[in-house]
């Protein structure tokens, strides 16, 4: 890997943010709305449930972590889409930039852009709704790492999908997190799902994270087994997504799709 080309990809995104500050707006707005909305829902649930269950850590914590994962994915795919929108593929891929440098640049860009949203979420959730987000300690770091890896995996997969199916397929990307959320078991235990959905859920690292988080909050201690399972699934899927992207890219070079990509649909 070479540092300069990676820095180039990151710098381009920073230039875009500087040149058009309105791009910061969606980074902050949606996560803030989610936290406010779910914050009040959990408050309401706490007031009517009459039980000793505190919904705030489980539900608001879940929203925060799921949004974190979604932002990471969107950070990678949006940085990729910038090249689609500006019809920049020929300039980009006719340069000495390697696939690994390009992906590394997209990932670092995503870390920077998504961290803005995460900070806003944490400030709102702790300041307004008194979520003790960091009270989970070390497992929280592991949970976030797993969700980070899955967000990267989804972002790389989404970029490969757009490269394969053409620019119009970007509309498939935006609903992807919503499509996966029922299987991710963000708000309910995995056992709530029918068996066939549980099988799909087990193929998604977030289900391990949210099961682990609930176990931890219920006083079950460090959910090592769940974390190890999540890491194994996550590593395998990251490898598969990168392999998928590399295959799609090689196919695009073989067929000349990269050079012709400015067309609306290359499918």
């Amino acid at each position, binding site marked *: 890997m070479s540092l300069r*080309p990676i820095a180039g990809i990151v710098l381009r995104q920073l*230039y875009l943010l500087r040149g058009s500050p309105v791009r910061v707006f969606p980074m902050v707005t949606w996560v803030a709305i989610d936290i406010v909305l779910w914050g009040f829902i959990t408050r309401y649930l706490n007031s009517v449930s009459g039980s000793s269950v505190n919904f705030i850590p489980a539900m608001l914590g879940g929203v925060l972590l799921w949004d974190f994962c979604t932002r990471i994915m969107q950070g990678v795919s949006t940085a990729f889409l910038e090249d689609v929108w500006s019809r920049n593929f020929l300039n980009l891929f*006719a340069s000495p930039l390697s696939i690994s440098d390009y992906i590394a640049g997209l990932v670092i860009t995503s870390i920077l852009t998504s961290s803005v949203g995460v900070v806003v979420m944490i400030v709102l959730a702790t300041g307004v709704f008194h979520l003790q987000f960091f009270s989970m300690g070390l497992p929280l770091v592991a949970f976030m790492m797993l969700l980070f890896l899955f967000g990267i995996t989804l972002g790389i997969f989404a970029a490969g999908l757009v490269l394969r199916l053409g620019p119009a397929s970007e509309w498939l990307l935006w609903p992807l997190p919503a499509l996966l959320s029922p299987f991710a078991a963000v708000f309910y235990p995995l056992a709530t799902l029918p068996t066939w959905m549980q099988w799909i859920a087990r193929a998604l690292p977030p289900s391990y994270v949210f099961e682990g988080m609930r176990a931890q909050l219920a006083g079950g201690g460090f959910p090592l087994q769940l974390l190890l399972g999540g890491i194994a699934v996550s590593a395998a899927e990251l490898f598969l997504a990168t392999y998928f992207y590399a295959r799609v890219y090689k196919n695009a070079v*073989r067929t000349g799709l*990269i050079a012709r990509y400015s067309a609306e649909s290359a499918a």
Partner: protein
Amino acid sequence: MMAAISPQRFPLRVVKLRKTYRTKTALEELSFTVQSGEILGLLGPNGAGKTTTINMILGVLEPTSGSVLIDGIDLSKQRERALAKTNFAAVYAALPGNLTVKENLRFFGLLYGISSLRQRVEELLTEFDLGHLRDAKCGVLSSGEQTRAALAKALLNRPQLLLLDEPTASLDPSAAQLIREKIKTLAARDGCGILWTSHNMNEVEEVCDRVMFLSQGRVLLEGDPKSLPQDHGSPTLEHLFIRVAREPLVTP
């Protein structure tokens, strides 16, 4: 005057390059070289295989067979090293319109791994008279300004090989003349090998040291653009181009 250079280190050496799409042959075993300081014109009607050739040299289209060596480096084996020694400008590959001229040059400068980038960007802004446009977004520039910006980007890495696909296509005669002068100076001063495509035969005659006519993926003619028309019984290069485009020639 072309610099003497060993055959292995031509800025560009294309060997038996072939591209087929299922049953259609886009390019048939094309072989040629571009020497240091030479401007080679790649001519032919639409669909002749010019852009296919350029795309394969740029590594964005995989040949079915054959090889591309840039400054002696095999593109298929050392893609990044080979592409670091080349660059291009084309009317259909404008710089991202949402970045300023300076931002684009810095962005691409980093992709090409340029050291002392700040200084190099300033040199190019001055050389292409873009200093007053440094903070203008490329999307709002005129065609001539965009071409100058694209050429500045193409020279960031002081390429051994420069590919120019119709670089003056959208320019007025005065702007086109300035660009031609700059390119000729570049080839003579820096010894850069240039592959140039154009449909403007007067321009080709003025700029190119040698031309190669492509038709249906094959080289039909090759030679000095000043003597080639007479050699083939045509009054002008444009007349010859039209003949070649309409019917294959039998070379004497």
